[in-house]
């Protein structure tokens, strides 16, 4: 039985359309012109108990709006959403007891209170029995290293410490479903690792279902066997991450800085030229057909290279590629 189910989930916002400048603002004030914008447009998916699903898309794609509907903060314009068999908005309180949510860089803790006091207050709000509360604190200790944080007020914490505190506070009532909005944003590698370990541990140990939004491909590669991609409010892909990586993550870009003009250069096999600047050469290649070192060798034979760099495709470019490829990807997937 699915834990989360959305059917044709849609949220339309009515916004005032403004022309630029003071005149435009005044005009909008006197005679506002409204425009309907579908932030989430007929999105359907199901998530089973114990899954970790990456929910991705560029900024403004509709990720936060979807999560707000799943948590009961927003009411859908049309379509339906069910979490653990409930309507999250109509049965907001019952739903709230069983979910946890981390919203990006906002804190749900009290800025000036030492962390232990904030956590105790959260425990009381969710009515966590004292013995259970102590047990969970112990359980979280290993991965999150809470003991060094307990007496620090949130305002004095580093970003990484804050996120550890935030996660502990979100999971202290053992929610069955957790929504994590950018849990690793701005963190260094070590801190990211810690957060990912904790999410994995909660998922495996307690069977917590996790819906994760992120811009970090590393998060997705390490945590999410399945991803859902939305763009401009529409679901454009729902399926295994492996398929995406195979199909869209094969391309790399390599850039050379040269002392001489690069215009006359003969391109190595299996790559295409992207940028056309005199002292810079950017090539795109499929890493299943050739390698960076082969290309570098071929280029260096012909020209003096001062520097070079290799870029992996980022999420935004993958999403763009999928979008340009049309909805074929989604149709090819039995899940949706």
């Amino acid at each position, binding site marked *: 039985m699915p834990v989360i189910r959305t059917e044709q989930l849609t949220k339309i916002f009515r916004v005032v359309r403004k022309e630029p400048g003071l005149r435009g603002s005044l005009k909008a004030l006197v005679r506002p012109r409204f425009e309907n914008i579908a932030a989430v447009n007929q999105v359907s998916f199901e998530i089973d108990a114990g899954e970790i699903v990456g929910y991705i898309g560029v900024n403004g794609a509709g990720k936060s709006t979807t999560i*707000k509907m799943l948590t009961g*903060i927003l009411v859908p314009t049309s379509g339906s959403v069910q979490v653990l068999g409930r309507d999250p908005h109509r049965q907001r309180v019952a739903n709230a007891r069983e*979910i946890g949510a981390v919203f990006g860089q906002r804190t749900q803790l009290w800025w000036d209170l030492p962390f232990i006091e904030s956590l105790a207050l959260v425990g009381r709000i969710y009515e966590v029995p004292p013995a259970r509360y102590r047990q969970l604190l112990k359980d979280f200790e290993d991965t999150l290293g809470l003991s060094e944080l307990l007496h620090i007020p949130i305002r004095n914490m580093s970003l990484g410490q804050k996120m550890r505190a935030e996660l502990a506070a979100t999971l202290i009532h053992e929610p069955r479903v957790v929504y994590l909005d950018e849990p690793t944003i701005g963190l260094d590698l070590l801190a990211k690792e810690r957060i990912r370990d904790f999410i994995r541990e909660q998922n495996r140990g307690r069977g917590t279902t996790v819906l994760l939004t992120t811009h970090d491909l590393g998060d997705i590669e390490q945590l999410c066997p399945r991803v859902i991609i939305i763009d401009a409010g529409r679901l454009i892909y729902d399926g295994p991450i492996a398929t995406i990586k195979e199909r869209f993550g094969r391309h790399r870009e390599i850039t050379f800085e040269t002392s001489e003009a690069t215009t006359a250069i003969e391109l190595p096999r299996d790559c295409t030229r992207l940028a056309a600047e005199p002292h810079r050469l950017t090539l795109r290649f499929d890493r299943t057909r050739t390698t960076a070192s082969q290309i570098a060798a071929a280029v260096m034979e012909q020209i003096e290279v001062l520097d070079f760099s290799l870029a992996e495709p980022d999420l935004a470019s993958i999403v763009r590629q999928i979008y340009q490829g049309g909805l074929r990807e989604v149709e090819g997937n039995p899940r949706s």
Partner: protein
Amino acid sequence: MRRYLSLYGVFFVQRLKILMEYRVNFLIGATSTSFLQIGGVLAMWVVMRQIPSLNGWSFDEVLLVFGLVTISESITHMFADNLWTLGWQYIRSGEFDRFLVRPIDPLFHLLADRFCHDGIGNLLVGTALVVKAMSALHIPFTVATALYLVIAVLTGGAIFIALNLLTASSAFWLVDSIPVTFLVYNTYEFAKYPLTIYGRGIRIALTWLIPYGFASFYPASYLLGRNVGALAWMGPLVAVLFMSLAYRAWKFGLAHYTSTGS
């Protein structure tokens, strides 16, 4: 209900811990409002030295009116101050969402989130004024009077909170509701004096429209043996009426928020 009471206790204790972290801040906040009120009383005293009676009301009698409304104001100041900042502190920053993912009533959460110590000064000054006025006027302090005073002050506090809730609910549309709240709230300055000194329009407005009169003038009149008829007893009814109206406005605003997200 019991759950919310004990939960309020927990919020309150945690809030005190924060306040104790900033002790100087606490002391300044808790006393600054009292200086403000004392200033107001002094100004009135200077005026009343020249005119021994204000439309038939002596200085001590006006003090009773002044004191009662000051205590009522202190209740909203202490327990409902977060209504002021609902817009820019919670809605604009998106922090309000935090209340909606928790299994408790969002209005309760908003109010319990911050006990405001600035109101303590007003409570002390108001109480001192009422005690001073009552002893100067030889009003016997019986069980019945004490009970009447408690009801009057709670009624006044409820009216203050209701009006602030009503105006604060506009934050769901305007985001910054402070000007609207300020406009209504500030009319309580009129209720520091006997309503009989004003014209009919203001008197009616302060009785039925923005009913601060029930927080000061009507109960004071009753205690002074001045006949105001049924109005001496109607306060609680008016408070309940305005409270339910304000709560509806809040619910309406909340529904707007959950459909627009702004």
